[in-house]
Structures are given as structure tokens and as C-alpha cells.
């Protein structure tokens, strides 16, 4: 998925290219809001977007794991993106959504403040992340998309969810 987020200097035409998904020159993204910033992830990584549902808290789990949900019979962990970014938690609203993504074969849900839209942009307008783009750790950022009126932060899902949590899974299974 992340190769699509890689930044190329090709300037392809919008729209016609590559059918459903943007190919090299087009990015199709799901955009959402967390703590006032607009983020985006590649649509191919997204399995589904659900309304908030009751979470079952898991004692002694990593702090950013809010709990688990039943996704059609499969138990998946749900993380709070605010906590993952090291921000303060906020009150839940009716706009909160759980975005379910698959990262390296693991299905994970994360809570966002609200989901905006599905957006198609040329990859040429995506630039590497500057050091200080917003309040979040720049290692989670795959790039920044400069739209006419606003900035989109493209998230690197594998960094956001993978390495650290996989490590923990391994240690916990050894300890078990």
C-alpha cells in the first residue's frame, strides 16, 4: 500500500489515469480529522469505516489500545489515534468513527474525530514531510499533500501501527 504513497515527481493528468485506483500518478485517499488536523490514508488499506461501538477494555494492554470490538466474529484491537499521537483524549461525539485498516496482515481499528471524504489527488502535489508540520511525530507521516485551500497529512500506517506493537505481541506471547 505504501508504495502508492511514495512521492514521485511525475505530473500525471487527473481523473482518467488508472481506473479505480490512481496507479503511479494518482492517489485515492480517505481523509479524516483528528485534533483539528486533516489526515489521509490510502484507500486500499481501509477495510471499512464504522460508527462508534461499545469497546471492551483489555486490562494491561498497551496504553493506546482503547479496547477490542467484534468485527463480524473477529476480535480486533481498536486504538485511539489521539493517544497514539500523544495528544489528550477528547469527549466522544456522534462524529467519531472507527477506521478499520489492514497493516501487514493485521486488522486494526483506530478512532478518529470524524471522517471527511474520499479524495483523489495527483501524487505530484505530495511532498516529503517537513520537520514541524503539526503536533504529531513526523515519523508517522508519509508525506504532506498541498491542496489549494488546505494541507493533508498522509499517514504511514505501517509505522503507526506496526513495529512497536508487533514487538509487544511477541514478547507477550513468549511470556505467556
Amino acid at each position, binding site marked *: 500500500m505504501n508504495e502508492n504513497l511514495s512521492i514521485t515527481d511525475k505530473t500525471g493528468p487527473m481523473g482518467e489515469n488508472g481506473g479505480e485506483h490512481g496507479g503511479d500518478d494518482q492517489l485515492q485517499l480517505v481523509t479524516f480529522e483528528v485534533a483539528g488536523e486533516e489526515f489521509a490514508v490510502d484507500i486500499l488499506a481501509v477495510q471499512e469505516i464504522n460508527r462508534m461501538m*461499545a469497546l*471492551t*477494555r*483489555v*486490562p*494491561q*494492554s*498497551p496504553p493506546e*489500545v482503547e479496547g*477490542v*470490538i*467484534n468485527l463480524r*466474529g*473477529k*476480535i*480486533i*484491537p481498536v486504538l485511539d489515534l489521539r493517544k497514539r499521537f500523544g495528544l489528550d483524549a477528547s469527549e466522544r461525539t456522534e462524529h467519531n468513527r472507527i477506521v478499520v485498516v489492514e497493516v501487514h496482515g*493485521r*486488522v*486494526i481499528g483506530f478512532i478518529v474525530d470524524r471522517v471527511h471524504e474520499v479524495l483523489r489527488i495527483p501524487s505530484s502535489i505530495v511532498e516529503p514531510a517537513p520537520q514541524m508540520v503539526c503536533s504529531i511525530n513526523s515519523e508517522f507521516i508519509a508525506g504532506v499533500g498541498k491542496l489549494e485551500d488546505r494541507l493533508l497529512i498522509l499517514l504511514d500506517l505501517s509505522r503507526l501501527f506496526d513495529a512497536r*506493537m508487533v514487538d*509487544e*505481541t511477541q*514478547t*507477550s*506471547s513468549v*511470556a*505467556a
Partner: protein
Amino acid sequence: MSAGGFDPQIIQDFLTECGELLEGLEGDLVSLESSPTDPDLLNQIFRALHTVKGSASFLALTNLVAIAHAAETALNAARTGRAVVDRPCMNMLLQTVDLLARQFQQLSAGEDLEAPDPDLVEGLTAFGEGREAGAADTETPAQEASGAPPVGPLGAATTPIDLPADKMALVEFLAPDIRQTLDTINDSLVPLANPESRREAGEALAAASDDLVRSVDFFEFEPVTRLSTALRDAAAHLEDADEDAIAQIRPRLAALSLLLTLQADGIEQATLYDWPTDALIERLTLVCAGKPLDEAHSLPADTDAEGALAFDGVLSDQPELAGSPELKLADAADALSAAAPGDDPGAKRPGAKQVIEQTIRVEVGRLESLMNLVGELVLQKNRVAALARRVGAAQKGDTDLCEQINASAEDLDRVTGDLQLAVMRTRMQPLDKIFGRYPRLIRDLADKTEKKINLKIIGGDTEVDKSVIEALGDPLVHLMRNSADHGLETPDQRGATGKSPEGTIVLEASNQGSHVRIFVRDDGRGLDRARIASKAVERGLATREEVDALPDRDVFRFIFEAGFSTVEQVSDLSGRGVGMDVVRTNIGKLNGTIDVSSTPGQGTTFTISIPLTVAIMQAMMVRVADEIYAIPLDNVVEILRPSDEMVYSIGDSPVLKTRGSVLPLISAFDAFEYPPERRTETPFVVILSVNERQIGLQVSELIGQQEIVIKPLEAVGRAGPLSGATVRDDGGVSLIIDASGLIRAAEGRKAPELQRAA
């Protein structure tokens, strides 16, 4: 020698199929050691090796074929009574199995297969040939005829064999292979004459000729394939043939066998022979199809193989026979004229193979998804049942509808239950699958420790879930090693105490409702309480006073602690103090328990109890503040609502006094880290027990018993004392409490109290 170029699926099939054969092989070899002349066993082993070799040669796995062939040669000598498998030979055969297992692993890892140790190959071959030296001369008579003769035996046209190198390397195995199969075929021709033994002989013949076709097929030697195919096709119809037909068929089959023997000789000299066999085969086919032959094409009575060849025009151009083939003709003629059916083990064995396997191979993945679906269905069933109850409560007016919904819910319940059982059974495998490995293990252990050990396996047909089987393998190996290494004494020691010099280890499995019980019992020296006790004190697991107050069984249980070993000398086999700890952990992962009992001088018994399946279980649902947890019912001893005087503290730790015993008490709020603002009352106590250790868990409310489907929780990363999660009938998720984890956590906090209580 990798099997490059072959479809990975073919390789996988080979590994699966031959892997199973290999597993059986080891056990059979060890059984063979105690009854080295058992013909059935010899044949079974021979056949397994033969199949492995055959499949491997199809994949051009030269190194694998070479060793399998050598072992097969040795076994053939034993099978035909020319030699008896002695200890050195058995060691070589076991080494062969080890080598094959390694080669299988290398194949599955995509590596080159290691070449067999030449000494091993030579040793096996020598064993196979050494005692048949006398017979070998008559066996390969044509070998002396050097060079490629322009005219082959019986006037055959000759073609030199020309093959790519990889096939060429395998050709040398073909000739002995053909001869071995022909032996069986010739043996079966005799009882074929007798109507009573015809059926059996026909089956044997069909099986052997089928083998032959498969061996030959790979090389694409047209004349050889033609002869063996004709033989096989004819053999398939023998059952229906009447007396007259048999009289026409038998000599012709003998003729084919004879020609094939000559082909085998030819192959050794890189030459193929070809005879005008069309008439012979055509007539054979006709008779076998139940069509009587014209008078002109019918063999006169009592025609032998030679006569049949002449009659059907195979020899018409060259009526004179070369010297050595005559010998073979005589052999074949002997086979025809001899009429002593019945006492021939060779004829019986391939017949057994004809029993068609009533099984199909299914990918485990498919069964797993089926199991998941059934799990889903159970959850939905629970929801429907819950809804039906609600409808029953709400719809006071329309009782008819209510009853119908309830009846339907009950039917669903029953059908789902049956389905669940049926699917579970598809995943069940007999414990023999792992028990089968242990005779070899014990044999090697006996060798290394210089003890005499008799392993008795009882109840190996007890079935458990596949995942349970896999997880049980290692713990059982540890236990058996312990018994063999520490438990049993040397023959001298045993003799001194009046025991028989041979120690016995009994591995016994039996069904106990939804559980399987496995005993590992030895009649050795028993556990040394004093030594375990002082080791426990030394390691700080308990004080001397505490240990002295404990009953034997609790003292013995210290051996399951990590790093606990009472053996001074770390031996090659065990005694590193990791085994028993691993055993307990692995069995705990299966929601099982292990216990140990021992009598000094009489032996030690380990008792393992595990659920038949790990996917579905009965649970007690409890509420803790606003969350609902599931507790495996197996761990629940008792549920009570204690009065105030039953609960008090020892030091800082709360305890529960019930029925004369004092149990440590844990609040679910503490165990599951509830923040202070969410804590409410916990008036109920669930008494949990794992391996006879008990604690009380304080909860808010009891909800009831439910069948739950266990889902893994590993995606979350680390978590508290939980063994998984399940979906409730309202669709929500409940976590499953890991009682042993909870007890361990409690022990960590306050070991002395717990031990006193337990």
C-alpha cells in the same frame, strides 16, 4: 539434487504423503525389533519404503532414492527370509529413517538434499545382498552377456537406452525394482490356479503390477511400459474370470512376467528389448474382457510360459532360446506348475493395499475456516435463543407464536450442536499420531542410558483435536525423557531392590467426557521428597517450615517450577531444569492440567488432563462493574456469596475461609485494573482451581453458564491474565479469564499464603 522445476504443489503432495509413511515407518521399525520375522510388518515397512522411493524417483530426488533403495534392498532380504534384521541392521534402518526425515525437511525448505553416507548405503546393500549371494546368480543371469547384442534374448530387437542424466542416474534402481515386483507377481501366479485362492492372488497381482507400471512409467521405456501395462490391465479382471479363461490367462501372464525379467536384465546393460507381443496382448485382453478365444487362438491345456510365447508368435522367428533365458523360463514354468497356494505371505500383503481408503485429504485451513463458521453459528444461535426468550417474556398475548419461535430456537440449538460436534470430529486425530514416535525415543534413550525399558502404549486410538495433538508432542517427550532418565533405575539398581531388570514406562490415554486424560507412569525409583524439598528451600520457593508442613503432592509440584532440577549432573538427555516448566506451561495453554504422584521405590505417575478441543468451551459469565467476563467452567469449583465473617485478612492480603480451608482472595477490580471511580460492590466469590491450587475471585454478579467460542486476543499485544475473548449473545465482546495466570499473579504477590492455603 533439488526438485527444481517441479510444481511446488507436487512437492507438497509428496511431502505430505511420504511424510505420513515416514512417521509410520519409525514405529514399525521399532516394533520389528521385537518381532524381526513378522511377515506383515516386514512387508508393510518394505512397501512404505518402496512407495517413498517410487515417488522420489518421479521427482528425480537421486539422493533420497539412493538411500531408500539401499534400505529396501536390506528389507527385501529380510522379507523373503534370506536374512533376519539384527541390531546393526536395525540401527542402519533407523539411521535411514532419520536421514529421510532430514531430506524431507531439506526438500520442504527448498534446499539441496544431503547425500546419504556411503557406508550406510553400502552396509544396507551388503546386508541385502550378502545373504542372497547364492540366489543372486540365478537372479541376474544375463549380466555376463556383455555389450549390447544386436539380437536380444528370445530374438528381441534391441534399442540402447538413452536418457537425460538425471533419469539415467535412476535407471540402475529400475532393474532390481522390476525384479522385486516380478517376484511377487510370480508368487501370485501359483495360487491363481486354485479357485479358492484366486481372488486374493488376483488382488495381489493387481497391486504388484500396478506398482510395476508406476515404477516403469517415469522412464518412458515403451516396450517395458507396454508389457507391464498389459499385465496390470489383465490383472484387474482376474476376479471375474472362469476356469477356462484362467487357463488362457495364466500362461500368458507368466509369459509377460518372463519377458519383463529379461527387460530388467537388458536395462542393466542399458538396452531395451522388443518382441512382437501384439498377438499375445490382444488375446490376453480379449479373454480378460470375458470374450472366448477362437479355437485357433486358444492355448492347449497345460501350456507353460514358454509355450505361450511360442503360441502367440512372440518367438515365431527365433524358436531357439538363448542359454540364460532358459533358466528363467524354467523358473516361470516352475511357478506355473507348482500348486501350493495359501502359505504365501507375498500374495497376502499387496492384497491388503487394495482396500480403498475411505478418506480424502483436506487442507487444515479449510477445516479451520469451517470451524470458525460453526463458531459464528453458535454465537448466532445463542443470540436467537436469547431473542426467543425475550419474545417469550414480552409477547404475553400471542402464545402460539411464542411457542413456535421457541421450538424453532430449540431445533436450531440441536442442529447447531450436532454440526459443531461433526465439524469438531473432522479435526480429531488419534493420539497414536504422536504416540507412534515414542517407541523410537524410548529405544534410543534406553541405549544411551544403558537401561532396559519397556514402553507400553495404551489407548493410542483416543482422539483429540489436531491443535491439541500438536501442542502435546513436546510436553510428552519431556515427560518420557524424565521417566527414562531420572525415573527408571539401571538394571543393576533394579536387581538390587528385587525389581525386574527391565523398567516399564506406560503411556496411557483415555476419554473422560469432554476431556482426555493421559498418564505417563514409570515403575522407577519415585520422586525424592527430601531432595525436592531442600531444593525448593534453596531456591527460595518456600521456607523449610512451610515445606515440611506440605503434603507430598504439593512438594512434588515444585518440580514444575522454572529452572528446578534436582539432578546434580546435567545429562545429555534431560536435567537442565527447563523441561517440566515447559511441560506445565504448554499444557496450561491448552487449558489442561498436569499433576504428579509418586511412591518411593515404586514409581511416578504424571497425569495430564486436557479438553478435547480448544475452540469451544463452557464458561461461567460474570459481571465485574459494567463489564462481563467469561471464566472457563473447568476452573470453577464453587460460587458463593460469603458472609462478612468468612472474609478477613492475613497481613495485607484478604483471604476467604470456607469449608475449613483458607483461600487467597483477589478482587476482580485489582486483577483487571479498574480505575477507582468505576469500582462498585463485589459480593460474589468464584472459587477458581488450577492444578489443585485455588483462589477466590471477587465479582459483582453472576450471569450464568454459556457455551463460548474462543477467539484469540493476540492482535492486542500484551494483556492481563486473559486467555482470549469471545462474542456474547448480545454481540458484545467478553474477555476470557485465564485462571492459571490469575493464580500465578496472585502467587507472585503472596506466595506463602497461597501455599499454605493450597
